[in-house]
């Protein structure tokens, strides 16, 4: 199955800065800082290019994951409402 089927584009896209992307971007940045720590470099001032790259990759992955999560939730909601619509007797 595709990561993001075409019908996912009918959903409102999540904002660029959302919980998932910001958090994973932060996690990526922390892992760059940890890499500095493990290699005995100054934690904040060293490898800024690495910090930016890891944070960017985390942000990117977070954004894609949030889009997929919203799609899966919307799909489940649609199936739920379809079921309710087809079985009104059970929901009176």
């Amino acid at each position, binding site marked *: 199955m595709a990561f993001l089927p075409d019908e996912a584009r009918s959903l409102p896209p999540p904002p660029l800065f959302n919980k998932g992307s910001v958090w994973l971007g932060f996690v990526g940045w922390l892992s760059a800082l940890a890499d500095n720590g493990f290699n005995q470099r100054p934690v904040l001032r060293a490898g800024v290019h690495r910090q930016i790259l890891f944070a960017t990759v985390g942000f990117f992955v977070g*954004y894609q994951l949030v889009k997929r999560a919203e799609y899966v939730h919307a799909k489940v909601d649609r199936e739920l409402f379809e079921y309710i619509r087809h079985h009104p007797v059970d929901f009176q």
Partner: protein
Amino acid sequence: MAAGLRAVRRWGLAAAAPPGLAFTRSAFVATKANNAQPNWLGVALAFSTSAALWAFLIKQHKEDVVEYERRKQARGHKCTECS
């Protein structure tokens, strides 16, 4: 064997007694990382990859918004239960 001994010394294990004299030839050479001289190729690749990823992400987000608005217009909002 001399190459193995040189590698051991480079790794800073000269003080430790090597376990027997059974050296295996390795394709890898361990060197101490030199953080004083920047690896400019790595820096350039990191920055260019970050810039490319950001550009792609922002472009994709803008396209997603446009596509969503277009599909909303095309649908004419006839279904009021699902959003």
